């Protein structure tokens, strides 16, 4: 039967009429999907890299990842997350084998996913340059990967302008799905607001309600944002702010700032610093005896913070993160991801890898459900609010601001004796459901751009 139809095509019947007649038949499913899709493409006008980027046997995804600079370690982790995701998508294994839409298929709409990696240097300018190259020279159908909110915002802006879908990588700023949100950008990581809101009730329960708090706040937008939301939600729990020490970004010695904290008489030390700043300041806080007197809370724990600081310092530290690998114990999807990652790279994934993996899967799922790579259709599918089972339970993107509604894990650092394996740094003390931590619609002034 299919042979017969093939012959008809060769005899000059247009592809479109063929597809229209053949689509309902079981035989059509046996045709190469690429063939099928190129026909579908014709139903949509050209937009961004569509249909050029979706016309071959494969589609291209552009990734801008910090390979050099301060975030090169998280960049490496993120890179592994993407590699694993596309390997799974192309082979129909891993989480791809578990998702309804991707089950049993290889690639996305039958097309192999290829990807290119460029160095963003944690530097928006370089990231934009890299992605522009991927969009213009490789017809990237989707772009992803970032290490900071600055890069995220720059890439989102580029995506909107070029009409190429952007699955935002690591970025915790409220602005990413707030005032700088874009129709073409979707984010899975919890915003600072969500992290603060998820954290507050759990730490209030664990540490106590009537406590005095000192904050160490890095002097940049992200630092102030995290401070504001953490302060807001913990004060609702009865916490009292007694000191707020704003420090320059990238300082290497925090002694003079920590003296202020040590002098504040607080019970809890909230360290808002991120990345290397967080490592240095936490380490020095311990040396100043601050951690003996105060409980430390890190609202947004950096991917490698625990291994960089060690259990000595991290024991008893509370905080949130996008994902911790022991979540595999309570979720099949997470288990699949963590096991596959461990098997391939010989280590546990950090949350940067998780974001890369999950966002890639969400994209592949949405494209498959949309049945086309045509960006507005994919966006509408992502906006539809359909609950997707994932590594974080059932998730969906909020249509108003493209923030993923997802559970937020709250963790406590384990002491050395509690650790059951070398990378078992955290105990999950609470998982706050996504719906409860979302900001009221319009809080951060998101106005999504147009579809076309």
């Amino acid at each position, binding site marked *: 039967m299919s042979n017969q139809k093939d012959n008809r095509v060769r005899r000059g019947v247009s592809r479109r009429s063929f597809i229209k007649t053949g689509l309902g038949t079981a035989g059509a499913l046996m045709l190469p999907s690429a063939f099928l899709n190129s026909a579908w493409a014709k139903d949509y006008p050209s937009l961004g890299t569509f249909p050029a980027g979706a016309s071959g046997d494969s589609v291209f995804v552009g990734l801008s990842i910090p390979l050099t600079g301060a975030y090169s*370690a998280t960049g490496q982790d993120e890179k592994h997350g993407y590699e694993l995701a596309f390997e799974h998508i192309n082979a129909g294994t891993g989480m791809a084998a578990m998702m309804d839409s991707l089950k049993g298929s290889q690639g996305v709409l039958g097309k192999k996913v290829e990807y290119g990696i460029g160095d963003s240097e944690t530097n928006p300018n370089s990231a934009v340059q890299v992605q522009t190259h991927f969009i213009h020279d490789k017809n990237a159908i989707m772009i992803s990967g970032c290490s900071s909110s600055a890069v995220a915002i720059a890439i989102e802006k580029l995506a909107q302008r070029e009409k190429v879908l952007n699955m935002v990588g690591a970025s915790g700023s409220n602005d990413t799905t707030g005032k700088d949100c874009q129709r073409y950008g979707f984010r899975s990581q919890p915003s600072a607001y969500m992290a603060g809101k998820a954290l507050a009730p759990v730490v209030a329960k664990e540490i106590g309600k009537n406590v005095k708090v000192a904050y160490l706040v890095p002097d940049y937008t992200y630092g102030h944002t995290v401070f504001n939301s953490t302060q807001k939600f913990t004060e609702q729990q009865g916490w009292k702010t007694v000191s707020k020490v704003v420090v320059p970004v990238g*300082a290497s010695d925090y002694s*003079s700032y920590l003296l*202020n904290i*040590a002098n504040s008489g607080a019970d809890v030390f909230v360290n808002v610093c991120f990345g290397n700043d967080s490592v240095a300041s936490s380490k020095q806080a311990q040396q100043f*005896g601050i951690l003996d007197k105060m409980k430390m809370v890190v609202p947004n724990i950096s991917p*490698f913070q625990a291994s960089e*600081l060690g259990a000595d310092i991290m024991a008893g530290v509370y905080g949130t993160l996008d994902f911790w690998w022991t979540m595999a114990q309570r979720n099949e999807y997470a288990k699949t991801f963590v096991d596959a990652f461990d098997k391939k790279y010989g280590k546990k994934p950090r949350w940067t890898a998780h974001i890369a993996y999950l966002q890639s899967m969400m994209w592949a799922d949405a494209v498959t459900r949309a049945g086309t790579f045509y960006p507005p259709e994919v966006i509408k599918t992502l906006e539809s609010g359909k609950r997707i089972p994932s590594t974080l339970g059932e998730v969906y993107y909020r249509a108003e601001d493209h923030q993923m509604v997802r559970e937020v894990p709250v963790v406590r650092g384990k002491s050395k004796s509690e650790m059951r394996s070398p990378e078992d740094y955290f105990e999950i003390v609470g998982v706050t459901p996504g719906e409860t931590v979302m900001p009221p619609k319009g809080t951060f002034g998101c106005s999504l751009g147009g579809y076309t």
Partner: protein
Amino acid sequence: MPNLSLFLAQLFNGLALGTLLALISTGLTIILGTLGVLNFAHGALFMVGAYVGYTVMQATHSFVLAVACGALFVLVLGVVIERGLIRLYYERPPEDQILMTFGLSIVIVETVRLIFTGISQRMAVPDWGSGIFNLGFMIYPKYRLIVMIIVVVTLLVLYLVLYRTRLGLVVRAGIEDQRIVGMLGLNVQRTFMVVFGLGAMAAGYAGVIDAPIVSVTPDMGQTVLVESFVVVVIGGLGSFPGAILGGVIAGEIISLTSMFNPAYSQVMLYFVMALVLVLRPQGLFGQEGRE
């Protein structure tokens, strides 16, 4: 809410910060003074010292060995750099040396990143340094206290070397006038090599002892480089006392500013530098006319 005890604490801490900065800047300034070379890779050498110290500490758990190996490795690295590259630049304008050492610092930083990845490495505080010490008016980490003493002793040794030995005489003469070194009939080549090695070693040594305090990453040298530039500008060219005073001033500025507005502690440093440039462009201990 500045109060007396916090003020005293910050004053003391400023001194601790300052002595370390002074040590690093001394290395920069003796190279600058004697060879006329501004070593842009000074921060990178500081970082290399920290990494070597970390590696040795991991392997042997001996802090003393870590410091010794870190300092020696950077000394050797310094000599290799001097013989292999800097030597070719003595007859060339100072700008060329800056360009080359700037490029070199990138090569060093990226090589370390290649070997150790960008992840921050953890160098433990030695056992004898863990815990805190009550100074009466404040409590202070034991390790930082000891580091402060070590640094002050090192600076004293450096002082003796510079002011009581033949090599020191040459270095100081060279700072006065670079031609003198040649006129004194000394082996200029060897002197330059030794001075560059020593200056590099000061950075590497500081890197090892600072490693248990800060986070050890390939980029850790950049802040140090900029701060030591500021110290040298404040203190004056090639001046050993200038580097010490400049270092202490810088430490105090950072510390005392942070009592009022910590976010501006770094910027105050630049502000004071600008002030010095207006009031005494040659630096506090600099000589007029030397450029």
